[in-house]
């Protein structure tokens, strides 16, 4: 992703009802992919887009209250908020992902926003991560975004924070965010550990050093991963147990 050689490769997923003028001038380095609703973008798929090589991803949807599918845009908003956390964890600038909600029949043309966004990405320059580290982190982020428990929380966020939960109470927004934060962090770290231990069995110390965490936190994650059948002891070298990833169903 060299900065100077060419303008950054940007993909823009656009909802069917956004920018529906006749001719939409699209800048050279931007690709537009139409989807029925911007809420349709599976978080894991957005991360896959980064993995495949795009340097910037913009999701374009309708500004509330004009979403044709009632709250598709709000779901997208929540997903992007979570994705930015994942990107940050993965060492990628969260600004590389942008959610643009425009009123139908937006005054300004799409090309204006596209140029503005590609300048932002261009200013960011190359991502600090080396190639293999980039792949590792993004793959872990993608798999975390596919974890059952993260997706259940994301899916039910609106219902639990806006309407009510099983006990008839409304969960305060900040409380839910804090919970989601923990879950995102935990799942990311666990899938990063899973990724790291797929090829080569590794020890807690080694993982802690790579992840920049305290060893006891890593050990705690490993106990939980064992409980969920994600990792198992491979062998013991000297006084250090080495763990190997298990294929998750």
């Amino acid at each position, binding site marked *: 992703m060299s900065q100077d050689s060419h303008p950054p490769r940007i993909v823009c997923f656009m909802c069917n009802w956004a920018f529906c003028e006749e001719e939409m001038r699209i800048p050279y380095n931007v690709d537009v992919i139409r989807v*029925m609703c911007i809420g349709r973008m599976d978080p894991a798929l957005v991360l896959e887009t980064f993995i495949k090589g795009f340097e910037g991803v913009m999701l374009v949807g309708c500004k509330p209250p004009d979403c*044709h599918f009632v709250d598709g845009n709000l*779901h997208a908003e929540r997903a992007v908020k979570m994705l930015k956390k994942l990107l940050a964890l993965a060492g990628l600038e969260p600004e590389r992902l942008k959610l643009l909600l425009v009123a139908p029949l937006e005054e300004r043309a799409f090309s204006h926003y596209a140029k503005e966004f590609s300048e932002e990405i261009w200013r960011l320059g190359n991502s600090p991560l080396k190639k293999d580290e980039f792949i590792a982190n993004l793959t872990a982020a993608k798999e975390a975004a596919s974890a059952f428990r993260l997706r259940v929380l994301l899916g039910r966020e609106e219902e639990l924070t806006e309407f009510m939960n099983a006990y008839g109470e409304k969960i305060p927004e900040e409380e839910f965010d804090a919970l989601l934060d923990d879950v995102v962090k935990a799942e990311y770290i666990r899938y990063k550990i899973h990724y790291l231990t797929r090829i080569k069995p590794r020890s807690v110390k080694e993982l802690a050093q790579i992840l920049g965490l305290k060893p006891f936190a890593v050990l705690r994650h490993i106990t939980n991963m064992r409980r969920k059948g994600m990792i198992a002891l491979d062998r013991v070298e000297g006084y250090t147990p080495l763990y190997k990833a298990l294929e998750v169903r």
Partner: protein
Amino acid sequence: MTEKPLKEVRKLPPCRAACPAHVNVQAYVALIQRGKFNEAVEVIRRDLPFPAICGRVCFSPCEDACARVNLDQAVAIRALKRLVADIEREQGRVVAQPVPKKYSEKVAIIGAGPAGLTAAYELAKLGYPVTVFERMAEPGGMMRYCIPDFRLEKFVVANEIAYIKDLGVEIKTGVEFGKDITIESLKKDGYKAIFIAIGTQTGMKLNVPGEDLEGVINAVDFLRAIALGKKITVGERVAVIGGGNTAIDAARTAKKLGAKEVMILYRRSREEMPALPHEVELAEKDGIKFYFLVAPKQIIGENGRVKAVECLRMRLGEPDESGRRRPIPIAFSEHQYEVDMVIPALGQVVEESVLPPELLSKDKRGPPLQVDPLTLETNIPGVFAGGDVATGPASIIEAVGAGKRAAISIHRYLRDEDLRKDRDEEKIEETTWVKDWRLLEKKERRYEPPIEKPHLSFEEAKAYLEKLKRQARFEAFRCLGCGPCAECLASMELCEGDKAVVDESKCVGCNVCAVICPVGAVKKNEKGVAQVNEELCKGCGLCAARCPERAISMQKLSNEQILTMILTALER
């Protein structure tokens, strides 16, 4: 992508289900959202030959049924239809290509009113040689002769009829049914099917003493005379009797022709007035006074001319079979109105004299003609009848509906197929998918058709038109898109009615999809596994994106499909 025939799409959005002609409202509104005005007209024309006319005068049952009424205000469907039709007429008029004759059987249509012309339009499209016989000098029937210019300009009517002519329909004017032609003469001339759509021309009598004094002219004759350009002198003070659209038209025409004071006497109250509320307001704005719960007892004349009208006060009793409450006169409540002209506007009746006796129905109370409500067959094989002549005075759009049904019957009759097979209209279900009204936000109407035509310079007009177009598109966005995929042809390849599919082996039944789906199309079945209701699913894909087990995928636009699009984009 051709539009799905009606019988396949049993579940229609409320607007389309309510419209007698089943105009695909959702489709053309969606096109308007995209600014594709011409395609919008093309969609309308598929079901309705008179977009501009109906855009002006239709009583819009679709707006009453619009789901948005539960939220704030119905979508301005009629106004949008009018705008797109006018734009198409002004800017890029589409000249229809004559349809090659596929069949040889000649069809005769009697009466060039909305019913007759629609039947001709539909049969022409099917490839039949059609000839329309019209008594008057010009085709259009009620549209041309009964509705005043300020509501429906003549050139608009002419323009729309021209489109039908271009399709290859032959219109013979000045031919009177019963006199110049009869059923036997037509049959002899080789017409295999005949459709009688002569409408109801004669106005209903008041049946009060003094009715035939000078200065009393029935509203239908009054309006027809003006439409024919005859000079009619209008009295100083005019009283119009009746509450329908014709009464309002007559009153406003009288005002426009110089009458100082025009009043409308109506025997029921304002709510029961059949006229369009919007028209009533315009009449009030013209200064016309309304007197409710009054009915004429007799017309008092002075040496042969009208001097005053004596009326009785009314009170409303139990509703009659039409559902409106029956007015009952209050004894000794006579009072007089000094007028020099009285225009009765009580509705029209069929000129039975014109019709052959064997067609007339035996019992007098019901409609005059003996007609099968579904197939419009009369008791003479090959002879069909529809529109006002069969149902009594009704709206233009209902006549168009009748015309369409007649065309189908004639087509099946000529191809001797069973006329009744799966044609039951009632089975069309009205669906609005909205699951939770609290989620939706109120948006007030963004577009109202201009009352008065603005006088603008050319540039100003251009800018004004652009403004109207933007407003129309914003208004179009208020449409909730109730029905399943509206085939709005917006982006052909994308939303050809994508549907969600559940992989039952992966689904654990966590029900997140049911919570997410804006239309409530996916639910857990008794086996505890998610199941998609094909008819409700609008293909938005939210459930697929959120499914925790990634068990739901979209048939057309699946994640893999998007991924390939990403990869191809990268190779570019």
